């Protein structure tokens, strides 16, 4: 901009041009909610578990698929666009999915690969926050404290990390981008 103005008015000094006030930057786009496929894949990625249960016939069913209609996923018959509102049903089913997968992860033999990555609780929490939310918070960051307190409430480390895992998945930083 400065060079452009100078080009338009070659006699102007740098000082004169520099007094022009900068235009505030426009806001970027608002956050978006992940679609259901993204949420399901993300949960599986961070916990190593998918949200599933046995149906009446004893077959394993993937609940994000079973509930896809109620969760606003398009069927390409009546709807072609996914409803990405973070509505009541989305919140309820996300909470159910978080509890199911986090508990399963904490009881799994793979717990060390997903929920208990580091020995020190603070280091592990930082690793989980990075893994679930993409925030690389420094060790002294005060934002870690409530999560550490939450972890500390439980009787066993596995249970504590399962609780933190539920909190991290149901937090908007997990499913919005």
């Amino acid at each position, binding site marked *: 901009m400065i060079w452009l103005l100078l080009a338009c008015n070659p006699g102007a000094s740098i000082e004169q041009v520099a007094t022009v006030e900068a235009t505030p930057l426009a806001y970027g786009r608002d956050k978006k909610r992940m679609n259901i496929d993204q949420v399901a894949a993300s949960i599986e990625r961070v916990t190593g578990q998918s949200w599933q249960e046995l149906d009446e016939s004893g077959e394993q069913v993937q609940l994000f698929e079973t509930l896809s209609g109620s969760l606003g996923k398009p069927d390409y018959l009546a709807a072609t666009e996914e409803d990405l509102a973070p509505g009541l049903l989305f919140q309820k089913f996300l909470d159910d999915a978080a509890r199911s997968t986090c508990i399963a992860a904490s009881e799994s033999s793979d717990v060390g690969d997903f929920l208990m990555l580091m020995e020190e609780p603070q280091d592990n929490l930082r690793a989980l926050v990075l893994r679930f939310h993409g925030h690389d918070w420094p060790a002294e960051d005060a934002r870690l404290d409530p999560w550490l307190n939450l972890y500390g*409430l439980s009787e066993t480390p596995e249970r504590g990390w399962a609780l933190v895992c539920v909190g991290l998945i149901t937090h*908007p930083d997990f499913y919005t981008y």
Partner: protein
Amino acid sequence: MPLLSRRSALTAGLALGGTAVLGPGMARLAQAAELEDRYYIFCYFNGGWDLLLSLDPRDPAEFRDDLKKSTLIDTGFSALGSEYGGLVSSSVPGMVFGPCVGGLVDHADKLTVVRGMSMDTLTHEVGRRRFLTGRPPAGLQAKGSNASTVLASVLGQGQPIPQLSIRVESYNDRFEGFASAIRVNSVQDLVRALRPSSDDFSAAEERALQALLDQAADCPSIEDSRIRDAAMDYQSGSKELVSLGLDAAFDFTSAQSAELRDLYSINVNDLGAAPAQAAAAATALTTGVARTVCFEAASGLDTHGPEWASAHPAALVKGFDVVASLIADLSTRQYKGTSETWLDRTTIVGFSEFGRSTLLNSSGGRDHFLHNACFLAGGGVKGGQVIGRSSDIGMAPTPTDLASGLPSESGEVVYPEHIFRALLQGAGVEEDLADYGVDPLMAIFE
């Protein structure tokens, strides 16, 4: 008590990509006006229904095959299976239906049938959204709000789920977030949505988890984003909803629901089907859970080929039977300890996106058609009445006097918005809250 209170205004239009105009003050209106304690059930017949077989028939003795070229009407009765007869007379003199009206005919004395309506479209999505919102869509994009949203915004503040929608689209362009539908695909999903979460954690752990999330809700990074802010509001609303323990009422597999299962012929292995949806609609209203409910009474009606002769009549009868069960159920449930029944307080609207062509096509099916009809029953609706008429040549929509309901050259062709405006007036709302821009079809009411 509505579940969305903290930031409800923000959530109103999220489903429409955040293009909402914020609420016009329904709460103030509700407090100021003398409103009727009315409930609403919208029964959607998905696919475009055949009106000659149901709500707007013609006598095959008069509209004979050899006259088709001049009347442009083929009743099609002769192509149907032997289980379907001809015209079906009701207990109301002169109120005649087509052979596929099912059990609805038994409630003719409670029905207003509106004939000769126009939909101005042959496209499913456009017709459906026009009949849901009372506004012509922009392309395929719905404009406006469902009539059930408008009514829920005015009357639904006392219900935990002001608007419940089962397998039917819902829109909210300007009304408070609490009036937006909770939309599920089946009764099974509804039960799961209302069921408390697993109790894997202690009460202390749950409290701490909630406190942490509540604290997060006040974080500037959350408050700076519309969707994240709304998400936190919905999250607390969701927890409040499940804390009410409403799931048991909708568990139609339980022993307590045996009577309901019989009445509606519910198949416990198919809780997505219309009978379970209708039972859920009645339950939602009578247990105080919802103020308005939309459900899919019939599907599979879009029959362009030879399947029209078998699949369409069967789907129609099933749909009308479901609505008949609903009317029967509500008419026997006492309304809040008064001498009235729930049907006296509940207005039922049965609709489809449009009718089907009056002549069979070369495949032996019927295509989409511009005309339509609908029926209403219950809450204030005048029973045993037919409003308007379609023409005897090609069943074209014809003008109707909105006050008397009689065909009249000086009247107007009836669209869904005429009916919705009347529903609002019937509830005690004079203002045209949804900008329908038409006069109400007041002939609907007694």
